[in-house]
């Protein structure tokens, strides 16, 4: 039974009792957290820019991320200039409508490529985290709820995956999948597909979500409300779905934002090593790789994707920390994925 005491009039005497749900409380804490709000709005701006990438390409820059402009001219300060000089040196940032951040070795618009590349990195990271959560939740529930042999088996599997570096596993899996693509039943993933990094990163990070979740399920299992649910004759699946899972949402939210940071960084490293997105398609990793090759003549090619990646990671990890402070103010969940990269 839940009773709500509402404030009757603004000048009521004493301490009016206001009962709020945990989510409302978290939201209130988040709204008072200035750092989280700043990082959150930065992230909002970035997401908007990434969503608007096709619009920017077609309406402002009038090009596509893969369109070469080897012999084109553009207007800078009222003068018509070749995009690539005679020695093949691309122009730097014009801060204008086209070639806002300059051009690359093939005369492609760097700003457009950057928007599309960041979009690819973020979507792949997001898809991978989604896949991880979808795989980790049932496994953690099964392990923590059934305990015994199921738990032993699943936990050993997590320990095993956990004991290998994510990047190495990712490179190997991705190489294996890239050789000829995969066909799993009706699902067919071609060898150049963007789904490969999603699957690879998603699989690699399953234990990073499942291990803390399992611990929480184990602790929740012993609580009285669980006993009450069992005693009232609910079936195990119903107990899990209706009684257990609602307690896990906040942990899942915090964990998956923290993991998204790592997933994006892993995608960048994979693409950099040639085991993720393949050129000419853009990802922050391939852009950094290409930028390194030509850094002496055109430093903007390296600087632009580096700054973009740092901004994305800064915004995301700032928001993730804010979410953690809001949802778990006393550190009771012990959720922390703070790891170096």
């Amino acid at each position: 039974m839940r009773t709500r005491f509402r404030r009757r009039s603004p000048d009521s005497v004493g301490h009016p009792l206001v009962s709020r749900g945990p989510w409302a409380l978290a939201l209130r804490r988040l709204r008072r957290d200035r750092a989280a709000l700043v990082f959150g709005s930065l992230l909002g701006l970035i997401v908007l820019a990434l969503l608007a990438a096709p619009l920017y390409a077609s309406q402002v820059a009038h090009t596509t991320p893969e369109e070469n402009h080897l012999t084109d001219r553009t207007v800078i300060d009222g003068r018509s200039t070749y995009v690539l000089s005679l020695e093949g040196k691309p122009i730097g940032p014009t801060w204008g409508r086209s070639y806002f951040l300059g051009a690359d070795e093939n005369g492609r618009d760097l700003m457009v490529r950057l928007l599309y590349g960041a979009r690819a990195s973020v979507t792949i990271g997001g898809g991978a985290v989604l896949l991880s959560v979808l795989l980790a939740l049932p496994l953690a529930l099964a392990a923590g709820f059934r305990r015994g042999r199921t738990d032993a088996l699943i936990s050993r599997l997590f320990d095993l995956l956990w004991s290998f570096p994510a990047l190495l596993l990712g490179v190997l899996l991705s190489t294996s999948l890239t050789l000829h693509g995969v066909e799993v039943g009706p699902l067919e993933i071609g060898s150049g597909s963007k789904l490969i990094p999603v699957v690879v990163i998603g699989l690699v990070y399953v234990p990073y979500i499942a291990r803390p979740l399992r611990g929480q399920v184990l602790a929740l299992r012993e609580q009285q409300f669980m006993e009450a649910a069992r005693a009232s004759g609910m079936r195990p699946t119903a107990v899990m779905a209706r009684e257990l899972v609602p307690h896990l949402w906040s942990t899942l939210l915090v964990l998956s934002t923290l993991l998204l940071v790592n997933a994006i960084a892993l995608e960048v490293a994979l693409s950099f090593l040639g085991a993720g997105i393949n050129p000419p398609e853009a990802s922050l990793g391939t852009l950094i790789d290409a930028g390194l090759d030509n850094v002496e003549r055109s430093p903007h090619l390296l600087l632009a994707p580096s700054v973009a990646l740092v901004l994305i990671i800064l915004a995301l990890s700032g928001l993730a920390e804010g979410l953690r402070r809001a949802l778990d103010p006393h550190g009771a969940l012990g959720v922390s994925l703070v790891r170096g990269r």
Partner: protein
Amino acid sequence: MIAFVVRRLAAAAATAWVASVLAFGMFWTVPNVDPSYFLGGAQHGTNVTRAIANEKYGLDDPLPSQYVRLMGSILRGDIECFYGCASLRDEFVGALPVTLSLVAGAGLISVALGVWLALICVRHRGRWPDRVITAAATAAYSVPSIVLAALLWAFVTHKSGAFPDDGYVPLTQNPFEWARHLLLPWIASALPFAGAYVHVVRASLLNAVHEDWVRTARAKGLSERKVIRRHVLRNGLIPPVNIWGLDFSHAFGGFALYVEVIFGLPGVGLLTAGTIGTFDLPPIVALAIYLAIVVVLTSAIVDIVVAALDPRVRRSRPST
């Protein structure tokens, strides 16, 4: 303690074995990935080309016997590459000191910097030095080492000329040159970790500061310095040391890959990155297994060191 060491090493051996089975399975048995498809040519080859490949490399043998043969050759160091290659084992062993120098140096720098800054934070908790350092740590943590390495290589190595473009000099040959080759790679790999460790160590030390035994130590009249060193640090460093151990045993298959590629350090990361690009299956599996052995061994050593420091760990079941 001896029982713990034995158990931990046995667990490490088991993990390495499972890793070898997984690596074999990943490249030999997944449909469309197994070598006969791979060697058959475009579109998985024709039946004829696949039969020739099967005949030549003995791919028709039962999988367990193929596994035993491949693992034997990997451990002996005379793998038969599909496209031809040198003895990878010797190359790997030769490259190991480079990566070891990189990882150990970065590990030491990150942990020293992290603990030192965290101590300053704890001493001035809530005041401006604490805030400045935690903010700086967040910033450092937000610059992935791949970006830091790329920027340092592009704008410091090239511009200043004080650092070599690539290559490596062994420590035994010339310690100064060794450090000069490794300084920037160390900074690039250590800074993001140091940023993360400031947060981890600070949180852990702040927990320890409120423990009863710390209050007792203060009540006894110990100096703040002794309280921190003997009572706060000893207990507060146990959780961070575990994270550090995991991070740096993973480094061999983690940041070493791209940091070595960017700085042209001839270590196992560069070797792996080069080998992956060839799509030649036996050396890829071989490197995966060599790296697995190194990773598993390092994390076992770290766990044994932690157990030596903290008696409670010795009694618990070792995790892989």
